[in-house]
């Protein structure tokens, strides 16, 4: 069974959060309804924040090889 590089694993988690956040943002931008504004800021913003945080955590927590 191949071992998973922790850095790569965290980048994948970060990327997944970011893709979800960006897709939510894209969908919300296509709609002019007030609920889209709330979803973009609350849900999309949360995923983007989580993705960037996981990425930053991954680069400061992984020891230099």
């Amino acid at each position, binding site marked *: 069974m191949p071992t998973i590089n922790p850095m*790569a694993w965290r980048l*994948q988690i970060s990327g*997944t959060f970011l893709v979800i956040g960006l897709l939510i943002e894209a969908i919300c*931008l296509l709609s*002019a*309804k007030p609920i889209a504004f709330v979803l*973009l800021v609350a849900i999309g913003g949360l995923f983007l924040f989580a993705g960037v945080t996981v990425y930053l955590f991954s680069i400061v927590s992984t020891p230099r090889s």
Partner: protein
Amino acid sequence: MPSGTTLIVILVLFSAALIGVLVARPGVTATRGGKILAFLVLFFLPILCGAMGISSEMERSKTTAFCLSCHTMEAYGKSLYVDDPSHIPAAHFQNHRVPAEEACYTCHTDYAMFGTLKVKLDGLRHVYIYYLGTPPAPENIKLYEPYNNRECLHCHLGARSFEEGATHTADPATLPAIKSNQLSCLSSGCHDVVHDISHLKDAKFWKEKN
């Protein structure tokens, strides 16, 4: 959809695609160039897209179409087309005394410090009530506070029609009272016909020529 929003959507999708490549092949970040790419794609681009998206939505939330997209506001939107110059919102909207595409926001924002933030928080409350609560009937909607003259004076202060208007200058105490918000612009007998939605069915409407 405005062209600016289209560009943001394209940037967002492009960023998502780049991130997708990194998620599928995280090995590319092993090199120095890959690390720089990861920084751009996983940090810089999402923050840029998020900021641009929120900024775009903030601007869109000021538009008349945005406010009138809720069913509860339909009657208020209709009242902007009443063919009667004594109807203050209609006269302002039809004569472009306020930007027609931002008519609601221009009069109902708060021109004090943090006013935009305050009205956006009020807007979030409206969304909550609209989707999760029981929205009041359109005729029962009231302002949170009595309409402040500050919002009128934001444009009218210093204007000749306001400062030298016969009614405003007939009594020397009138103008100072208006300016200090002691006498409301919407007082009875003054500019008191605002969104008179309970009488909309009897009103005559202006048809905008395209």
